[in-house]
């Protein structure tokens, strides 16, 4: 008799944090365009997960829940400003050295951020987080067809904005 599908071993909160921190930072940075806001947004998402850990840990993929929170907050102008404000408080206006961590190809990410929110989220999850369409749909809570439509429109808009060729 074939074994029933097994759930992957449950990750503890700290292990989940270590595993997903950088992936979530990349999503938040790409979508918000602010390093400080990205740090704050990721911390907020993990804090939210920690508060509800008894529920979140029971999900098949707690990381998907975190991604949903991060991408939603990252494209929200108000959320982003609040995160930046809190980051400013936290840093106390401390001056930073010239940035050694600015992302390459800022033009590309600026164009992604100029997309409608849902399209930007789909692009970030698909290309940056390397998620197939089905997983993007699951994270965002929509149908795969919707994701494909957003992806198609996003690619057309990006190709025009970047004056590059859209692949097949």
């Amino acid at each position, binding site marked *: 008799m074939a074994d029933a599908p097994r759930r992957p071993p449950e990750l503890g909160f700290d292990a989940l944090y270590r595993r997903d921190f950088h992936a979530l930072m990349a999503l938040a940075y790409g979508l918000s365009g602010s390093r400080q806001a990205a740090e704050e947004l990721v911390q907020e998402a993990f804090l939210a997960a920690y508060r509800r850990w008894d529920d979140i840990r029971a999900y098949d993929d707690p990381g998907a829940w975190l991604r949903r929170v991060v991408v939603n907050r990252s494209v929200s102008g108000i959320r982003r400003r609040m995160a930046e404000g809190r980051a400013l408080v936290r840093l106390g206006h401390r001056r930073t050295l010239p940035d050694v961590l600015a992302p390459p190809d800022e033009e*590309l990410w600026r164009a992604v951020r100029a997309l409608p929110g849902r399209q930007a989220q789909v692009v970030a999850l698909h290309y940056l987080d390397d998620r197939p369409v089905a997983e993007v749909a699951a994270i965002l809570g929509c149908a795969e067809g919707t994701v494909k439509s957003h992806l198609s429109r996003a690619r057309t808009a990006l190709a025009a904005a970047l004056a590059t060729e859209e692949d097949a």
Partner: protein
Amino acid sequence: MTPTLDDRLAAGAAGLRRTVGAVPPPAPPRPPSPGPRVLAALVLVAALVAGAAVALRSGGDDGSDVAMSSGELPTLVSTDPPAGLALSMAYDQETVEDADSPFDTLAADMVVYGDADADDPFAERDLEVRTRTIPPGGEMTGDEDGTTSGPVTVRGRPGLGGVYGDASTEAGLRFLQWTESDTLLVRVASYSLSEDELAAVAAALVVDDGVARLAEAPAGVAGPLDEVGSRHRDDYAGPGAPREHIAYYVPGGGEPTGEPGTASAMTTVLPGGEAELAALRWELGPGEAVEVDGRDGWLATDRLAADPAGGDDPAVVMSLVWARSEGVLVRIDTAHLAADEVLALAESLDVVPADEWAGLVAANELLAVDDDPADELTPVGETTVDGVTLDD
């Protein structure tokens, strides 16, 4: 050949992943257990602030740090904040949350030079030499709020040079920065030295035990450049480093909105003596000497082209620092406040007994836990760029 969109997306994604991969994760968040709703927390904050004010009024006002115990810094709260401000939150924070943080200047070693015999040591000549560790392979680019003149070679290593633009909090500061090794970044910076003088300083530096220093002013650089201040990361990071006490004020109190254009003030109590005060004073940049409760202070004004909280409107950011008592520095950072309001806030600070402070911090944590993540799960909308709503 023009790269295709897929090439560009793949390279851009890889570059961004590589960039954030170099960011050391801070410690995982650890909130207190879930508490009551915001209203209850605000009532509690108000009650605690009122209680603290009563306690302060019943005590002396001689600047003695009565709440300070061995190894701890005093906890300060304003009893009468200016400009309609009220306490929003209070919290304690490691002076450096992560010793390897690339974002925190306290995680760097810093030495400042000027005229040791002058009342204002940085009035004629000034120099900062800052050293910090960086993640291996960190990519050096320009400051996102500043202006750089482009790549340069310093001491045979790749670097950047230029002058910060007026969008930066360091507007007008000329700098040279380079990677002394794969994990060591050095910056020399000055408001008064020329590009050639900075290059001569960089060439003359001695890097010893991970810290760059200038032994004497090199030929061709007019002095004096005496060492007048310094700050060392080991005093702020790692075991035994004290925790800063921070209080944040916004109009009317309550939770900060982060909205651009809103007045705000933050008081920070941090450790330090004369050397650290001089370093901080240089760091604040050009300003004016002031007096706070009979002690010498420095008030610096940054006129930013854009509000640090967001938006495109200009903003005035002021910072005040003074030594409140031996080993205790106080710093106030404000946005959208006038100089007399900043000074009024400084003079209204007094020590809160430790248990009162603990109550304020606890109330702040109650505010923080009210954030309901379920609120954030609402889709952001389905409208596309051409206004069409897509169906599944």
